[in-house]
């Protein structure tokens, strides 16, 4: 039984986005993405999802207290006059 091209594309999409496919597989995925509107939308979504994840998870800044604590861990070799 042969697999539907969409199912195969779905399996390859992550690897494709991660640059983990060899040239032949990558071309195969690209051909399908060109032809299939559904997979192409999934591809665009997946790309946006990764970017969204990165942005969302980087929104919480370090607290000023932690910054002070880290600075206090420095050695005391500071040249005279340095804060």
């Amino acid at each position, binding site marked *: 039984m042969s697999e539907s091209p969409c199912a195969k594309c779905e399996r390859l999409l992550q690897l494709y986005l991660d640059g983990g496919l060899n040239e032949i597989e990558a071309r195969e995925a690209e051909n399908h993405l060109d032809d299939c509107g559904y997979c192409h939308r999934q591809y665009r979504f997946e*790309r946006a999802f990764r970017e969204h*994840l990165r942005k969302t*998870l980087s929104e919480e800044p370090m607290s000023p207290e932690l*910054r002070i604590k880290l600075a206090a*861990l*420095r050695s005391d070799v500071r040249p005279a006059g340095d804060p």
Partner: protein
Amino acid sequence: MSEQAPDTAGRELAEEARDRVRFEEEALSRADQVYQVARHLAGSKEEAEELMQETYARAFRSWRSYTPGTNMRAWLLRILTNLNIDRGRRKQRRPPERSLEEGDYSLYDRLEETTGAGSSEDEERLLNRLSQSDIVDALTALPHDFRDVLVLVDLGEFSYQETAQILSIPIGTVMSRLHRARRLLKQSLAGSLENER
């Protein structure tokens, strides 16, 4: 001539002190970026703050092992990841065995469904339906092994090869864990949409 020896030694000491201060300043200037990764490698803000302090204490102690001009952020994150593993915080949650056959496409499908949008809906708008806390919770709920890989690759921006080295696992394991992590994350987010209905 003989009085030159203490002079040279003095100069070397001064130079070393300068290098060290430079190192410390550079390490501190990366703290925000390192924290973003620490925050999601650790399970909570408190743990992340402890981890940051342990990391910087260790880094400042072993500053001589850093090669100037190389990637400081990566160097710090390597220390941090290993300390995090050493903390033995692995109350390992077993990954759900079921449902993994459900495809990668399901989150998008669910978002489209629940938004009642046509195919022209743009991705950003769909994604904005996922709240920050949904995303953070879904990530926190991932098994540690999976979370480590996802955070190092997607937030730490390490290559598979670097991630494999940091975690001391084969590169194939990095890839399979990464794919599983993304899939689990999306499934859990799709589930959170379900619950809202």
